[in-house]
C-alpha cells in the first residue's frame, strides 16, 4: 500500500486528536463531544477490523458495545468503584459473548451473516431491556459514576475533569488502535485480507477460513466492548439503546462513510457522523430524516467513503 502517504497521514491524525479539546470550541463543539467522537471512532474502527479488513459484515455489533457498557457500569455499581476494573470486566464480557456467538455464525456469509448478527444482537438488547432487577431495564443503569484513577503516586480525577477524561480515553484509544494496526500489518492481518479479497483462493492456500473469521470477530468484539465501556464511563450511565440494532447500523455507516478500506476511515466517518448528529438534532426535530438521507447519499454516491476518494485520486 501507499507507504509514502502513511506517515504524514498518521502525524496529521495524532496532532488533530491531541489538540482536539483545545479547538473544539472554535467549531461549535465541546469537550464531551470530542470524547464521544473518540469513543465512537474506536467502536467504528473495531467494527472495521472485521468489515473492512476481513470482509465480513456484522450488523449487530452494538451488542458487544452494549455488553462492554453494561459490564463496566455493573462493575462500578455492584462490585467495586474502579474505572479500570470496570473496563476490564466490560471487555471480558464482550469477548466471551463474541466467542460464543462467533462460533455459532462463522459458517454463514454475506447477507446471511449480517442477518444472523442482527438477530443475535437483539438477544442482548432484550435481556437488558427486560431484566429489570439487574440491568435497570428500560430505565437504564444509573446511580453510579466513573471513578478517579489512582496511579499510586498521584490520582487522576477523570470524574470531575472532562479534559482529563478526554486524554484518558485518548490513551486507551491510541493503545487499541496501535494493537489493531500491528495485527493488520502482521501475517495474521494479511491472512484476513486474503479472506476479504478472495475466500476461495484463501481456502486453497490452506487457510482455515472459519477459524480466522472467528478470531477476527473476537478482536473486533474486544475493542468494541472496550469502546462500550468507555461510553458508559463517559455518560456515567448506560441503557438498552447501547445494544440496539440502530447503533449497529450507525457504526457501519461511520466505517463506510469514512472509507472502510483505509485504516483511519472509520475515525473520519465517526467524527463526521457524531458531529452531524449533534448539530442536526439541535436544529430540527426531523433529524432522523437527515441521518436517513445521509445513509442514502453515502451508499449511492460515496460507497468508497471519504478516504476512499482521496485514495482513488492518488492512484490515478
Amino acid at each position, binding site marked *: 500500500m501507499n507507504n509514502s502517504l502513511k506517515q504524514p497521514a498518521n502525524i496529521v491524525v495524532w496532532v488533530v486528536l491531541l489538540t482536539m*479539546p*483545545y*479547538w473544539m*470550541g*472554535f*467549531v*461549535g*463543539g*465541546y*469537550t*464531551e*463531544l470530542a470524547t*464521544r467522537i473518540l469513543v465512537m471512532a474506536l467502536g467504528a474502527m473495531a467494527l472495521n477490523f472485521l468489515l473492512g479488513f476481513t470482509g465480513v459484515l456484522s450488523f449487530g455489533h452494538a451488542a458487544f458495545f452494549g455488553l462492554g457498557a453494561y459490564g463496566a457500569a455493573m462493575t462500578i455499581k455492584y462490585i467495586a468503584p474502579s474505572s479500570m476494573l470496570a473496563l476490564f470486566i466490560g471487555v471480558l464480557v464482550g469477548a466471551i459473548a463474541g466467542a460464543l456467538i462467533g462460533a455459532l455464525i462463522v459458517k454463514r456469509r454475506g447477507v446471511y451473516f449480517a442477518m444472523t448478527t442482527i438477530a443475535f444482537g437483539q438477544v442482548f438488547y432484550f435481556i437488558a*431491556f*427486560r431484566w*429489570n432487577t439487574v440491568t*435497570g*431495564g*428500560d*430505565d*437504564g443503569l*444509573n*446511580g453510579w*459514576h466513573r471513578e478517579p484513577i489512582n496511579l499510586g503516586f498521584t490520582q487522576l480525577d477523570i470524574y470531575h*475533569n*472532562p*479534559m482529563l477524561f478526554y486524554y484518558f480515553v485518548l490513551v486507551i484509544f491510541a493503545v487499541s488502535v496501535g494493537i489493531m494496526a500491528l495485527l493488520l500489518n502482521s501475517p495474521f492481518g494479511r491472512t484476513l485480507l486474503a479472506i476479504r479479497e478472495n475466500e476461495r483462493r484463501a481456502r486453497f492456500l490452506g487457510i482455515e477460513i472459519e477459524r480466522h473469521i472467528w478470531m477476527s470477530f473476537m478482536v473486533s468484539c474486544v475493542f468494541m466492548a472496550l469502546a462500550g465501556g468507555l*461510553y458508559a464511563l463517559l*455518560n*456515567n*450511565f*448506560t*441503557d438498552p*439503546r*447501547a445494544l440496539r440494532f440502530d447503533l449497529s447500523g450507525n457504526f457501519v455507516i461511520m466505517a463506510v462513510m469514512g472509507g472502510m478500506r483505509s485504516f483511519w476511515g472509520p475515525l473520519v466517518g465517526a467524527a463526521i457522523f457524531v458531529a452531524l448528529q*449533534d*448539530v442536526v*438534532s*439541535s*436544529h*430540527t*426535530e*426531523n*433529524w*432522523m430524516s437527515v441521518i436517513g438521507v445521509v445513509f442514502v447519499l453515502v451508499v449511492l454516491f460515496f460507497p468508497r467513503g471519504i478516504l476512499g476518494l482521496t485514495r482513488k485520486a492518488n492512484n490515478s
Partner: protein
Amino acid sequence: MSGNSKLNIRRRNLLQGGLVLGASQIASPFIMTARAEDTIKIGWDNPLTGTYAAPGKNELIGAKLALEEINAKGGIAGRKVEIIVEDSTSGDAGTAVQKARKLIDKDKVNFLIGNVNSALAIAMAQVSNEKGILHIVPGGHSDTMTGATCHWNVFRVCNTTQMEANAIAPTLIKTYGKKWYYITPDYAFGHALQSGMEKACTALGGTKIGGDLTPLGTTDFSSYLIKAQSANPDVIIFLVQGDDMVNALKQAVQFGLDKKVHLAGAQQELENLKGLPPEARVGNWVMEWYFDQPNVPHVADFNAKVVKASGYVPTSRTWFGYVGIWTCALAAAGAKSIDAAKMAKALQDFHLPPEIALCPDGAFYRAGQNQLISNLYVGKARVKGVKGPDDLFEVTSVVKGADVAGTLEESGCKMTWPA
C-alpha cells in the same frame, strides 16, 4: 404539523456561538467558566421523537407560551429569556444525558428542563445535580425523583404515581367493587404505580386478586386480558402507559371486556384518548390537569392562547410545560438572583400565582421534597367530546393534592443541600 416552526425559538448560530466559546477557551482551556451573557437561557431536553413525542411536543407548546409571557413582562432579572431545544429522544437516556451536558457545558444554560420519560429525567437529574443547575421535571412521574433519589436542585411539576393512585382508589372501591386485577408494565415505573395502587386499595378494604407484569412495548395484550377476565375481578386496573395503553384498551374492548368488568386505571392522558378509536374510550382515570374548568379563573384565557398557538386544546402536558418554564422565572424573581441554590431555596413551599396554577385549590412546591402539589381530576373517558372534539374526559371529582400526597416522611426524600 410543521416541525420546523417549533424550533424557531432559537436557531443556533454556529459561527457566532463558536467564536464566543472559543475565545473563552483560549484564555483558560481547562476551566469552563460561566460567562455573563445578556440572555437567560433555559435548556429544554425533552422528547420530540419516538414514543413520547406527542406529550413532549405538547409540553413544548406550553413552554413557548410561558416564554412569550415572561418576555412580555420583562424577562428574568431584566434579561430576555430564550429556550434552547434539544431532542432527548423518547428512550435513549444516553442521548438525553449527552444533550444535558451539552446544554450545560456548551450553551451555559441557567435552567434545565426535562423529561417526559422518568428514566431519562432521573439520568438527567444526576447531571444537573453534579453541575448544580436548577432542574425542572415537567412530566416524569417516577416517585423516587421527589423521593428516595431527590436532589435539592430538581423540582417536579407532575404528580407522583402514589398521588394518582390515592386519588382514584376511593371512587373505584365505592362505585365498582373491591376485587382488583392489575395489568402493569414491567419496569420501575409500573412496579411503583402498582404498589401505590395496592396500598391505596388495601387501605380501603379492597383486595388484589391477580395481576400480570407485561413487558414494556407489548403489542398483544390478549393473553393477559383473557387471564384477567377468567379471574373474575370487579375492576381491571390498567397501569400501562402510552402506546401500550392504546394497544391494551383497543384489544380489551374488542374482547367485550368493557361490558363485563369495569375497566380503570390511574394516569390517563388526553393524547392517549385521542389516539383510541371511539369505542375504546372507556374506563375511569385520573387526569393531572384538565382544560374544562369553567369556574377556575384564567383557565379559559390559557385555553384560548393554546388553541391559537397550536390549534388544539391544552392537555395536562401543555400545562406541565407552561408551569415548568414559569417556575424558572418565579424562582429567579423570588430569590432576586439566578444562583441555583438561592432559587431552589426560594421555591421551598412556594405557591404559584393563580394565573399559572390554573386549578381550583392552587399549587405549591412542597418544601423538603420539591414536589408540586396541585389538584387531580378523577373521572371517566367518554366516546365523543361534549365541548369540542377533544373533550374526551368527564371530570367527576377534583381531588386536592395535599390530601393524597402522603407525608414528607413517607416520600423517603432526605434532601441534602450544598455546603
